[in-house]
Every structure is written in structure tokens, then in C-alpha cells.
């Protein structure tokens, strides 16, 4: 099962992002993914080394272990929260900010129920520490609902195609679909199947999700776009 999701969060003081690998560029072959993962790993270990050298020169300020006040840029607003450095972005959203669309299911980067978009990249909220999300642009599912507006085309497509049962995985799937469609506005059926493997559903709603994402792509192209 390949995933195009970036599971390696970087904090505000991290080195610049490596160039996009094959896997991120929507070249969904397994070979491409494996090569991409290899390349990514190399870049990361270099990055880790650099960080260590920098750390030796000038130790970064220590945060914690107690709670600290941080400000997070979420859905275009600055939101303050008192969090411990060990708290994930997901738990911060849910427990401190009452933003509960993202769900906690596996809590270790497998199922995608906590999917958010950070600086334009689809990520698992459970694998990002809240303090590492400071200074980054965080989008949660709540951002897709504007008061007084029709439901976002992706949300409406999920409803039209009954792409949900219990609905607990659905917020993650909607955000993963948004990230996917942002990268790939003209997906084929095969693209959709390969592009959403980073999320899991237990009730078995995948048939509806496949159709929903294709419908949403169409709708976003033909004027439903207000994202």
C-alpha cells in the first residue's frame, strides 16, 4: 500500500524542504514510490546531521516540559493554546481548540482519520507535534464550511454518492481528497484508487468515495469551485 502522504513533519526552524520526490509528484507506481522513499530518506538523514551541527554551534531554546502558550495559524486565524511540547497537533485541535473534525483513531500515522493540510501538504495530525506546527499554515476540515454557503463540492459529492456510513473516517477522507484534487485536478478512476490509500475506512465506503472524488473533480472544474 503506497501513500503519497508526507509523514515527516518539520518544525519552524527545520531546513528547507527537499525537492519533491517522484512519489509526491503523483507518479503513483510502486517503483516510483520506493525510489521516492529512498531519496527522501537520504535527504532526511543529511538534514538530521545538519541540524545536529547547528545545534552544537547554538543550542536552540528549550521548550517544556510544562505547558507553553503557542499560537497556531489555523484556517486563516491565529489561535492560542497552552500545550505541552509532547502534545500532537491532533490532540491540540481536539482537546484545546474544540476543532473536532479530525478524529483520533490509530494515533500513529496509519489510518488518516486525522488528516489535515499543512503548508499545502496533506499530513496526519497525529504525527505532528503542536509546537512544530507553529508558523505553518494549518487547514482543517472546518475550513471547508463557510457560514451561509452551500456545502463545499467535495462534501456535497460525498453526500451525493453516499460515501460514508458511520462517518468517523469521512473527515479525514474529505481532507485527503482535497489535498489529492489540489495536486491532481483531472484524476482518472485509477488515480483516485491509488491517491487515497493513506486513509482507512472500517464500514467499507470506498466504492462511494471513488465516485465522490471523481464527481467533486468535475464539479470543482465547472464552477462549483470556491475553495
Amino acid at each position: 500500500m503506497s501513500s503519497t502522504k508526507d509523514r515527516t513533519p518539520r518544525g519552524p526552524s527545520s531546513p528547507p524542504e527537499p525537492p519533491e520526490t517522484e512519489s509526491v509528484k503523483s507518479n503513483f507506481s510502486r517503483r516510483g514510490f520506493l525510489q521516492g522513499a529512498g531519496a527522501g530518506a537520504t535527504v532526511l538523514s543529511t538534514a538530521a546531521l545538519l541540524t545536529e551541527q547547528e545545534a552544537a554551534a547554538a543550542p536552540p531554546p528549550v521548550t517544556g516540559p510544562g505547558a507553553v502558550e503557542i499560537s497556531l495559524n489555523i484556517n486563516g486565524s491565529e489561535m492560542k493554546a497552552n500545550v505541552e511540547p509532547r502534545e500532537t497537533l491532533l490532540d491540540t485541535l481536539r482537546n484545546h481548540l474544540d476543532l473536532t473534525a479530525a478524529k483520533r483513531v490509530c494515533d500513529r500515522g496509519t489510518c488518516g482519520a486525522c488528516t489535515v493540510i499543512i503548508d499545502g501538504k496533506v499530513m496526519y495530525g497525529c504525527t505532528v507535534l503542536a509546537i512544530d506546527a507553529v508558523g505553518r499554515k494549518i487547514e482543517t476540515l472546518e475550513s471547508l464550511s463557510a457560514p451561509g454557503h452551500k456545502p463545499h463540492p467535495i462534501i456535497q459529492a460525498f453526500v451525493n454518492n453516499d460515501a460514508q456510513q458511520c462517518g468517523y473516517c469521512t473527515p479525514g477522507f474529505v481532507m485527503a481528497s482535497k489535498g489529492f484534487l489540489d495536486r491532481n485536478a483531472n484524476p482518472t478512476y485509477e488515480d483516485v484508487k491509488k491517491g487515497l490509500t493513506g486513509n482507512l475506512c472500517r464500514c467499507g465506503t470506498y466504492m462511494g468515495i471513488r465516485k465522490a472524488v471523481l464527481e467533486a473533480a468535475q464539479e470543482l472544474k465547472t464552477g462549483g469551485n470556491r475553495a
Partner: protein
Amino acid sequence: MPDYSWPPMDKRQVMGKRLNRLDGVAKASGKAKYSSDLNPNGLIYGALLTCPHAHCTIKSIDINEAKAVPGVTSIRVINGAGKEMQWRGAEIASVAATSESAANDALRKIKVEYDILPHLVKEADLSKVGPRARPSGEQVTGDPDKGFSEAAAVSEGIYGIPVITHCCLESHGQVVRWSGDQIDYWPSTQNVSAIGGDLAKALQVPVPNVSVDMQYMGGGFGSKFPADLWGVEAAQLSKESGGKPVKMFLDRATELSIAGNRPSVFGKVKVGAKADGTIVSWQSETWGSGGMTGGGLNADLFPYVFRGIPNRKVNHTAVSLNLGSARAWRAPNHPQQAYITFSALEDLAAKLRMDPIDFFRKNMDAVRKDFQPTYQRQIAKGMELIDWKKNWHQRGDSGSGQWRRGLGIGFGTWGGLGHDSKCRTTINPDGTVEVEIGSQDIGTASRTMIAMVVAETTGVDYTKVRVKLGDSHYPTSGASGGSTTTGGVSVSSRKSAVNALDKLFERVAPLLNATPDQLEARDNTIRVKGDPSRSMSWAAACQKLGIEKITEMGENVGRNAAKEGLITQGVAGVQMADVSVDIETGIVKMNKLVIVQDCGLVVNPKTAESQAYGAGIMTICAALMEERITDQTLGRVLNADMEFYKLASINDIGEIVVHMDIHPDMDKRGIIGLGEPVAIGGLAAIGNATANAIGVRVPSLPLTPNRVLAALNGKGGLA
């Protein structure tokens, strides 16, 4: 006596239409608040300390250090010194604290000493379970040995289906506040009307002191009926913490270890037939485990569906293991029985070099008589949808390439009679229609179906019907298990809506110069039947109520339901699978799964199909990848997480084709539950398709690469 009967199939305005679920936008936009999403004022967090050993006695427990952790508001010892713990994951202590991290820190400071005791956590090899085996005793019908001696072909095989877990995405748990006499309880449950009573009993408080509210729940599949120990503990923690609300949901490892599983079944089966394919004799020795409580399965249920075999000998042995206990799992026992039965029968058909379709048709007399025409029709439909005639071949005649393709079939049956249910419908003077019912929507679209039934009855748009459920103050309705909800709530909501409408007819009939029985309600209008010119709008009619609303009850009583004709029970389903197997790597790939299912009158085909797709996908998970893996040395579940407890992704399921058997002969039976029957026949279909593709039986599910390769190398076993 009011006329509650369903309008004729061709006259229905709402029921039978493909309509969107009413809470779809709320769920897909993240606005729907599941119990685990609730953050009431003053919320604190609960956590459980669970047993790290498969079997032990607690020697001592010390909570003093844990008490000192900042933020801790309460610590409770659930099982203290001297208690024997029977599985890893069993509850030892609970903590409440002002943050989740503080609660978890406190758990780590609880000092427990254990005396380790011997354990058993594996059951596939019956010769190694010793005194843990509890045979039910042999049951014999006819003369099986004589049957085998006269058979032209006898097939013997071993088959296995391991334990799988529910793996609900919203784990088991609740938010609960015990303040003064009042307990506010927000569980994740399939049982809104009765779970409050369950909690009250455990806490020894009067039932009315517990108020249950649950608007959304994230999956149960049969595992979420009782209040559970964690519900009781969370309530006690709340009380001990000064009445602050406590949120306590199981972490993923605990969820997969103790919050329910489906029992395993393994079996040795011998079955014989005449040269023309007629089955004459069946013999099965099966065993399995559902944890400490065994895995009691009625051996007499073998063989499944094809029950009328003249000579049978059956025996089932329950094995007690040091593992968390089984809970009902979508169609309890049926998927296992179907897998064992149809694997063994297909092996016999292959031995006879018969097309299994011909073989099962030849034996149709062994099936319950009223199901025979349904199965025959469903087989024909399934063959068409999977192109059986073109794609089926003799077992193993799948060419010489690396990828081998095969087809297989399996059958299912279920009851699905609607449960007891009460419902209250109110017509307000402003024209709004409210429906109150102590039921729950566990993802099956109950909310939407209730609205559709009431809309069909009153002529009001279904999106305007306000369905209020998930609250224990509403009229009592059954738990959502066993495919009983759609039938139950449809009858009670239909009756209460008819009763309320009749009252409205009495009020407005004189204004239309008619008698109440001459009126009908359609398209937001009340009008005289056959004379549409004499009509008034729904809003105008309701205005005539002045300040007085109409409130009427309706009730379904399961045991009386059949004679009323609104609902019934007993359905049949056929599933067929098309797989390709890579004989070099052992990977089984789904090409297509075909689901043909009867469920009587279909209220909403769109959401009904979702149920069937979902069951098909769950079936693929269990057939190809899903398995609770235990280790006897460590005495633990090795994959109590979602990395290694494998569920299918959106790219692992091939294509699924659902054909709901919608036509007048089925419709006239009334509503029958659907959730379980679609979750039965597919395992056998996929296993049989794999055997058809590679020429040998892979005895045990899931059909992982290592099992497939072992079978190809002649080493297939039950491990």
C-alpha cells in the same frame, strides 16, 4: 383500525427512492459531534491501566506515587491484590486527570507486582490446547458412515477462519458526568434506550437518574451494547472528581485487545456425494475460540444453508484462551459456518469435476423450501454479473502464466425481523413534523429512513421531517443488532405518523366537506381522494390546530409483526468472487465481488447498497488480510494496532457489484433487515475463487501470500 399498510410499490412517493442521507453534510463537514468529540465545560480525562500479562495474579498494587502526579483528580483500583487476571488488557486501575498526558503519566506511576501464571493464546492446533478444550458432544443424524461407504466421491479437508476484531474507528468509551443525583451519559453505543439502565444497575442508582444522549457513533458492528466496565469506571471517576465530566475512550491497542472480536472456527470436514453430485453424507469436527469464554458454536448448524443432507455427524469444541472475549460480530457465526461449509462442498464439487453452480443447483432440495426459488434466481443473476459461463474453468485449469484467475461462490441467509420499537410523532400548528424515537443511527442511515417513512405517510418533504433520536428520554426502541433496526423503526414511525395524520384528518375533514377516511396527504397537501380540487395545503391544515399540537404514538411488537404484514424475516443472498493470484508471490488480488441480496421492501436503495458494499469490503478484509495474531511465548496479541492489523485500502478491493433483489414478489414481504445477510457468503466465494485459480485449497483465511505459497508447495495447514 387505521390502515398502516405500505402504499403499493408503484404508488410510493418517497420510500424506494434513492435519497441522500439527511445527516450526510453534518458528517462529511466534520460538524457532526460524536460522543468522543464532546468537550463539555470542566472536562477531565480518564485512562485505564490494563494487565500486561496473559494470565497472572496481582501480588500488590501501589497508587501513592500516581496520586501525587499534578492534575490527577481520582485514582481507582479496579482489580487489586489477590485478583487473578485472565487476559492481557484486562482492567486493573483507572485514573482521571485534568489532561490526557497527566492521566497517562499517573498510569505509569502505578506500581503493580504480578505472579505470572501459565497461559494459552493459540487454538489452531487442537492437539496443543489440552484441558482448555470443551467438546459439545457428537450429534448424529441418519447413518453417516453408511452414507460415505455408498458415496461415489468423498472429499476430506481442513479449513480455518481466525479471530478478527471489530476495530471500531471510534473506540469504545464515553463522556460521562455524575453530579449530585444526575448522571449525564454520552456513550458510543448501538443501544441508546437500554444502555442507561445497564449503567444504572452497575452503579446501583435508579434508572431515571441516567440520561443518555448520542447523536453520532463511529462504528460498532455488534460490539457496542453494554455500558462496560469502562463506562462504570468513568462515571465513578466523575463522581470522585467532584462531578466533573470525564472523557474516557479506549486507546487503539486496548480497543483491539478487549473490546470485542469474532470467534475463530477451524474444522476437519468429510463430505460425500453420489456420482451425479447429490450430497449424501457430512461429517465435521470443528473447534474455535472466542477468548476466555470459549467460542461456543452450535455444531448442529453445520452444514450451512444446505441443511437437508440425510446423514450428518457433527461436533464442535470450544477452546478457552487467555484473551479478551468475543462479542457479536455482524451476523454472528454465519460467516464462519458459510466459509467452512462452502469450502468443503466446493472441494467435493472439484473432486467430481463439476461446475459448483451445477453442484449447488443439484442439491437445492437440501435448502429450505421457500428459499429455493430465491437462490435459483440469485444464482442466475450472479452468473450474469460475473460472466460465470465465460470465466469459470475446472479447478486449476487456469493457464500457465504467473497470474491465475478463478471464480467462486458462497451463500448466506439471515432472519432480520424488526425489533420492538416505540415512536412518537408530533404535528405542530406551524406544520413542522417531529419524530422522537429512542433509537440510534449507527451509520445505516436509520435517521434518513425514519424521515422517509414519515414523509411517505404525511406527504411532507423528507428533508423537513425532524427526526430526533439518540436520547433515552424518547420512546424506547431496540438496540441496533442482528439487522433488526430498519424493520423495527419503520413500523413504529409508520404507525405513529398514521395515527397523528388521522387526528389531523379529523380536524380538517369538515373544512373540505369530507369525512376523514376520504382524505389523503400527498405533496405537502391534504386532499379528497379522487377529487384533487378539494384540497388544502399542509401548512394551512396544520394552522387549523390553533395552539394544540397533535402527538401520537406508534409501536412495533416483534412477535406480532408478521401478521401485520409491514415487516417479516428470512432472506437469502448469493455472492460470487473473481480473483487473480500471483503464483510467484502468493498475492491474491480481487477483480470483482458480486453481491446479490434480497431484503424485502427496500426503504432507500442508495443507503441499502452502501450496506452491501460495506459488507463486501469487510469480507475482502477478512478474506485477504485481517487476522488477530497472537504469540504463545509472549502471551499477547502482536498486532493490536492498525499498521499490522490489516484492513483493505481503497485500492485493495477490486470492483464490487451489488444487485438488490428489488421486485414486487420480494417487496410484498415488507421490510427485512440487511446489515448481516450481506456479510456472510463472500468469504467462501473468495476462498473458492482462489482454489479455482491455483488448483489447491488454501485451508485457512486470510489468504496471505505465505499461506498461498505454502498451499502451492503442498504444505497448506491451519496456522
